[in-house]
């Protein structure tokens, strides 16, 4: 077998698979079995003396470059890693069925009917003051979105439902949400409602209301916001 250095100076045509130097086999075995990246000194100590480790590493790197596993340098150490473009392959999505808590469901329903609605307004309707956690859950689930800020002291954020919400509940538009009469008809209200009780008819109109300002830059970064990927 010709020396590695010589071989690398040869034209490519002369290199055939059978002539693959033994040190490449050794190197790949060492790097494969190692529990951590190895530096050239360590590799040199384990390989037969006289091996041009640097040249062998370069050649191995070139060999593996088009493969699903690449030889990469991390600091001054070397290791095999899955090719960057295949990271998706090592990701496995497991569907985990989950039920919304009752509080989240109630809050979602209020956002749906009363949108655009602020957290304080939700709390007023629900009569509890813990809407933040459930709003965060709903933002994460990806069924609601912050849509503006109310022109009011504190400029609270207004929330609305989104496309994913409509899609999940099989609604074409928010107008498909049943009104009071339909809810009564479905037996969901038992008839002892106070006079003047009403159920709002929410609108899909994305235009901000008169009492709303647009969201400001940064509003979507404060953890209130859904992951951009969840909303599609």
């Amino acid at each position, binding site marked *: 077998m010709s020396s590695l250095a010589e071989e690398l100076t040869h034209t490519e045509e002369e290199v055939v698979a059978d002539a693959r130097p033994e040190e490449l086999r050794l190197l790949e075995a060492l790097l494969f079995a190692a*529990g951590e990246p190895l530096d050239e000194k360590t590799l040199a100590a384990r390989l037969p003396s006289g091996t041009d480790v640097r040249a062998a590493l370069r050649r191995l790197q070139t060999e593996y470059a088009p493969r699903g596993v690449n030889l990469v340098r991390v600091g001054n150490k070397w290791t095999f890693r899955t090719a960057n473009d295949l990271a998706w392959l090592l990701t496995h999505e497991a569907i985990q069925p989950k039920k919304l808590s009752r509080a989240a469901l109630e809050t979602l329903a209020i956002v749906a009917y009363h949108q655009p609605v602020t957290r304080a307004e939700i709390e007023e309707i629900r009569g509890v003051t813990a809407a933040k956690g459930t709003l965060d859950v709903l933002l994460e689930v990806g069924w609601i979105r912050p849509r503006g800020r109310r022109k009011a002291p504190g400029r609270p954020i207004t929330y609305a439902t989104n496309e994913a919400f409509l899609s999940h509940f099989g609604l074409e538009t928010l107008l498909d949400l049943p009104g009071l009469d339909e809810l009564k008809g479905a037996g969901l*209200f038992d008839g002892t409602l106070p006079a003047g009780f009403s159920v709002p008819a929410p609108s899909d109109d994305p235009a901000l209301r008169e009492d709303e300002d647009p969201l400001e830059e940064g509003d979507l970064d404060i953890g209130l916001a859904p992951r951009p990927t969840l909303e599609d």
Partner: protein
Amino acid sequence: MTDTHAAQTTAFAPDPERASDEPALIVDVEGFEGPLDLLLRLAREQKVDLAKISILALADQYLAFIEEARRLRLELAADYLVMAAWLAYLKSRLLLPEPPGAIGESAADLANALALRLKRLEAIRTAAKRLTERPQLGRDVFERGEPEPINEIKRPQWSATLYDLLTAYANERQKHALARVRLTSRKVWSLAEARATLERLLQMATDWTAIDQYLIAYVVEPSMRSSVLASSLAATLEMAREGQLEIHQDAAFAPVYVRRRSEPGSGGATS
């Protein structure tokens, strides 16, 4: 260390005169993995092919070994002693002529069966040896030293139906529709406010007027209604007592009518 190191003794029990504190010398048999192993070892000492081995000679050697062990008061596991008994029997069968018309296996059959057992054990030992000579994982061949684990992303799939949603909404609204009356009634329309309002209103109305009409015109928030009614009624009664206005009601729970009293002092309340 071995399977055979059991301190049992059987028919070949040690000399009863042996002192109980005398240690059992079991060292010599510990090297053997049972009577078949011992037989194999002895057979190998014959340095012949197992196929050609003389079972009779082997039996003699085995029995001699056991005799020696007993003489030395070595404690032997039951397995060895059972084999000794069997070999002694086999030996006697092999030495005696086969009785004519004997039923069952001949002595030669028994000897062959023993030889086969020895061969089989030998074969399994060879196999075990070859198995351990194979490249073994973690000793000779290695898995990836630094595996890259599959990232399991648990994507929650939320289950909620439209019915769940509507039920939650209706329950919530219904619950608080009632609760709110209590809640907001604490936001009272004070008597002073009621009285000031009434005084202003009565400037405008000289004829009998249902109190509700004034108030509904004034108080748009429906949840304040009961508070307004209560306070204004109290204010009305107070003002009537002071002789500023007259009150009229046709029946209990019927609308309450009031009017400014034109002549102070002559008013009365019907209720």
